[in-house]
């Protein structure tokens, strides 16, 4: 069964309900797993869909959209399980765009494009709600990443829709902000990465990272540095610097890698038989991961969120 992925653009609650309610109701009546993830509209929907209470799972956006790669993997696992038994996951999603910083916004917009690749063939029905009062760049990206527009029970082809590979290629082709001049720069010569891990750990601890979060960062940096050493072209370097609420680690080499599609840069969860987890696992273990490739080298920038409480406390 094909995926349906539509944007629901609304001005007010009535317009939202006109499309959201029949979408959720249809799924509940079919007995499919139905998720309604909204920014504060749970009670509104519950009132309208009282007859289907128990058949619909309501979640607040802030509790659901915590991590791009992880939520994609979770929903995909559910969608594939349902598809295997003839069912179809139905998700009404609404991001909390106003609470996102530019990097997070870009990451979640990439997810919107990736949904068209990752969920293809699962038969999932995904309806993404966009308040027309959102910033224009958010609405523009929504128009580029949804193959259908929804109004009521009607689905119309979206003429602005862009092939997700093109969208990602454009997004991932944008130059990264330059690293700060005072960032730590370390050459990576040896495949023995123990010293590198020790250095990253020192910086990370200085910025409040420890325990499992630090370990996840070390595993992610090790994976990316190993890739650069094995497949890239020297010199390989590691840069580290702090940003508000984040620690950034960037591994660069001077190779000319040109990945053929989003799967190669870790955007698509590996199939069950695939042993190499690679950049997908790096994305799972980190915050936003930016990959830039081309004839002038490869850069993988790993952003690790530092929990606010820790970041705010004196070190």
């Amino acid at each position, binding site marked *: 069964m094909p995926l349906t992925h539509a944007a629901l653009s609304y001005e007010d609650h009535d317009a939202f309900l006109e499309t959201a309610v029949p979408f959720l109701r249809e799924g509940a009546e079919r007995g499919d797993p139905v998720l309604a993830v909204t920014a504060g509209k749970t009670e509104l929907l519950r009132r309208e869909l009282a007859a289907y209470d128990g058949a619909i799972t309501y979640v607040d956006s802030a509790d659901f959209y915590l991590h791009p790669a*992880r939520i994609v*993997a979770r929903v995909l*696992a559910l969608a594939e399980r349902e598809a295997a038994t003839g069912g179809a996951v139905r998700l009404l999603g609404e991001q909390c765009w106003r609470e996102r910083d530019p990097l997070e916004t870009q990451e979640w917009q990439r997810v919107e494009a990736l949904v068209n690749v990752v969920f293809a063939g699962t038969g999932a029905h995904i309806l993404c709600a966009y308040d027309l009062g959102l910033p224009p760049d958010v609405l523009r990206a929504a128009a580029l990443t949804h193959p259908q527009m929804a109004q009521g029970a009607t689905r119309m082809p979206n003429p602005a829709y862009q092939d997700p590979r093109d969208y990602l290629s454009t997004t991932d082709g944008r130059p990264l902000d330059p690293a700060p001049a005072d960032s730590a720069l370390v050459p990576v010569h040896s*495949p*023995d*990465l*123990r010293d590198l*891990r020790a250095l990253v750990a020192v910086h990370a601890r200085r910025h409040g990272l420890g*325990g*499992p979060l*630090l*370990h*996840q960062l*070390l*595993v992610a940096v*090790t*994976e990316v540095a*190993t890739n650069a050493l*094995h497949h890239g072209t020297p010199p390989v370097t590691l840069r580290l610097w702090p940003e508000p609420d984040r620690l950034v680690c960037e591994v660069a080499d001077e190779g000319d890698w040109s990945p053929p599609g989003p799967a190669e840069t870790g955007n698509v969860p*590996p199939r*069950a038989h695939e*042993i*190499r*987890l*690679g950049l997908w*696992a790096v994305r*799972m*273990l980190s915050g936003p991961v930016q990959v830039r490739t081309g004839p002038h080298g490869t850069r993988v920038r790993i952003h690790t969120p530092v929990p606010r409480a820790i970041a705010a406390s004196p070190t």
Partner: protein
Amino acid sequence: MQVCRPVRDLLPGDHAWFPFASEEEQGHVIGPWIEHGLEIRDKVIYITDAEPWELPGLYGRDLGFAVRQGLLSLIPLGEACLTQGMFDPQKYLATLNDEIAKAQEQEFRGIRLTAENSWIFDQPFGDSRVDFCEQRLDAAVAPSVSVTAICQTDVRRCGGGRFSLLDSHHEVRVLPNPDFDDPQLTITRTYQPLGLHLRGEIDVTRRLRFAEALGSLPPTTETVCLDLAEVTFVSLDAFGVITDFTRKRGPRCRVLLRHVDPAVRSIIDVVGLHRLPGIELGDG
């Protein structure tokens, strides 16, 4: 508290215990210990009915030359510790004392003493006789600057409280020598349960060694236990080595990870155990 030590690291004064559950395991520890002792011209005293070519881990190796040179003494049980077919603790201790004294007279720098004691439990009053012997032996060996002793126990013949009885008499428990050992990673074969004990960091630089150690485990093994209690880092590549191993061994093969550090465990939790086919989490 009991100290676990690879057999290569035993020191004079160690009265060590080696519980084993297979001839292979016994050979993996006792063979290298005897061999190394003979190499450095220690005196090796083994209470056994075995011939010089039948020793654990050295089967088929003719050690007659070592016997002739007086480096290796194989003392049959009847001569060493039996009286009318029964284990005689006094005779056993006297034999050991005599042999140690002779070796010291011959000015051996090191004296290695070993015997298997499991069979004694099958005899009347076996438990109390072993208890008595172990106490006396400990008193003789512990203060010594030349004698090292390994008491071997076949745990398949040692049930009930006997295991803890023997455990309590020895401050050192013997492990096999590591299959691989460098400042980053130590890999040691384990037999109970079957698998590997790992210490340090496992990443791509030790991929081959780790894969080799896994590959050297008996091909019929369905459950392989990896003790990760002393592992501080496991790269994604290392997890790949494990899943590759289970895939090659077939669908019945599983690798049980035991005593996983919480930070390492977090990697598995985030990536998802279902993405690591063949890997399971064990106790601890």
